[in-house]
């Protein structure tokens, strides 16, 4: 067996994500408030604002860090809820009694009638766009993919010797799930959650870019990109920084997810 090595990109991505999380969650302690006007409009980098200021004279770095905080918070909340719902529905759909499993399976599959984030757009469009609604809308959109993954994983685990043995000894389905099935799922779920988190962050930024996500004055990378494109030619840095940070975050999460996947799932290839 050839042993897979985690490449340069995996470690670079990990370092980037750690720094980003550091900025996001420790930023408020050493950066100015995101609404605070710290200098003249569009000033070039200075000691107080390392990346310069925006069209209102607010620190660009502070806004990026708060944007990271919002994106990561929403992303983690959504992914947490999606995992909860997806694991529950996935396990019910594959191990539950038939009268529960069949409707759960059908319902999960039917959810794929809504492509990508169309359902989230519908929910936000009709119910309103405060951060809480965004979290619920994206979680409702994200759980079916988790459920489907759990289902395929459980299907292969179900016939493994240790599960069959436990079953033969009289273990209840509930005991099997807690003791034998779930512990085997964490690895794959963690790896896939990284890639899913990237998708959620992308979705949140897309909504904010469209003006139906996080609302001003709260900064979000998506809305920063949207306002930055007005000064694309005169002040390209307004557009450059949020674009770069967002792209690197998505890139990084995908790489870390693929790397983890290669570790936990020896059959899969690093793409």
């Amino acid at each position, binding site marked *: 067996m050839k042993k897979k090595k985690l490449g340069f990109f995996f470690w670079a991505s990990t370092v980037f994500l750690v720094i980003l999380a550091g900025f996001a969650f420790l930023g408020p302690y050493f950066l100015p408030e995101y609404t605070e006007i710290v200098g003249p409009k569009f000033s070039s980098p200075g000691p107080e604002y390392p990346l310069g200021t925006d069209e209102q004279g607010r620190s660009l770095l502070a806004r990026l860090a708060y944007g990271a905080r919002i994106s990561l918070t929403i992303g983690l909340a959504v992914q947490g809820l999606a995992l909860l719902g997806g694991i529950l529905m996935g396990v019910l759909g594959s191990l539950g009694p038939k009268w529960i499993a069949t409707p759960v399976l059908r319902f999960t599959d*039917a959810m794929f*009638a*809504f*492509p*990508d*984030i*169309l*359902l989230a*757009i*519908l*929910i*936000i*469009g*009709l*119910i*309103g*766009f405060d951060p809480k609604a965004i979290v619920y809308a994206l979680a409702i959109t994200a759980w079916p993919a988790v459920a489907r993954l759990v289902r395929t994983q459980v299907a292969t685990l179900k016939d493994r010797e240790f599960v069959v043995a436990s079953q033969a000894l009289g273990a209840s389905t509930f005991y099997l799930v807690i003791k034998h099935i779930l512990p085997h799922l964490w690895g794959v779920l963690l790896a896939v959650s990284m890639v899913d988190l*990237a998708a959620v962050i*992308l979705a949140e*930024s*897309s909504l904010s*870019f*469209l*003006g*139906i996500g996080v609302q001003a004055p709260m900064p979000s990378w*998506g809305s920063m*990109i*949207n306002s*930055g*494109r007005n000064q*694309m*030619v005169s002040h*390209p840095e307004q*557009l450059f920084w949020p*674009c770069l940070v*967002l*792209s690197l975050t*998505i*890139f990084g999460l*995908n790489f870390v997810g693929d790397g983890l996947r290669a570790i936990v799932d020896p059959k899969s*290839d690093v*793409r």
Partner: protein
Amino acid sequence: MASSRPKSGIWKALGLRLFYGVISLFFLALVTFLIDEIAPGDAALVKMGEKNFTQERYEQVKHQMGLDRPMPVRFAEYVGNALQGDFGESYYGTREPVSEIIGSALPMTLMLAVPAILLAAVTGLVFGTIAAIRENRMADSSILAASTLGVTVPNFVMAPILVLIFVHWLDVLPSSWEVNLRAPLPFYLVMPVLIMAARPAATLTRLTRASMIDTLKMEFIKLAKAKGVPPWRLYMVHGLRNAILPVITAIGTSFGFLLTGSFIVESYFIMPGMGFEAIEAIKKGDAPVIMACVVLIGAMFILVNTIVDLIQPFIDPRIREVQV
């Protein structure tokens, strides 16, 4: 008769798939309707205007609009009307029928989505095959790197980059849609189509590559090579014909991402398609327009996926046998 059995099996499977498509459409409409039900907006209140509100008149308007009838009845009516192309009227402005808004928005979205998915499919197949043939060589790694960019760079990041290049530096393309076109139509479509196609093209490239690499390792490829089949025939007929199946399934899924991409692209380039109209409607709280746009975009997605599944057995004889 032994020979007629597979044939009836395939028709049964196709019929089942078609039925599944119809069920999906029904589910799509139902969920859309239910979310509108629990949403805070009130059509009767919008219709009468909040200024001259009296409880009595409110009940009257509600009755006139049929909103006091039970939910299943109203859902049946919504579906019935929608099948005849009637999605109600807009809450705002001149209370324009939603069908008229859709009537001008749908062609715009199709004009972007159809070339984009074709471009994505062709790019994916061509570059994926090249990458597979040249596995682990220069061409392969550059194609993989490009496809990684295609997957990770969001389309609203790609858009300003392209605008910077094609509008501000090269000055060859118009920066956004105009009511009175000042250049030939295709000029306006280049950037939107490229951006919408980028992500599907990247995923399809990766998938074609992976599928083709697996296929090229098969015994029958070795045999064909040993028999002296010329390379282009080996790759195109023996290889791609077998590798293409998962790719075709993925074209259906990618089309979904492409359609949601139209929200961003149409908003960015101010092109009045379904995505643009939906976002404008969301900002105003115009529920009938939002619902119609979502239902139709979802319907396009279901339609393409159903077609993709229906043509599969005709491309791959192996499926025909499995389904018997």
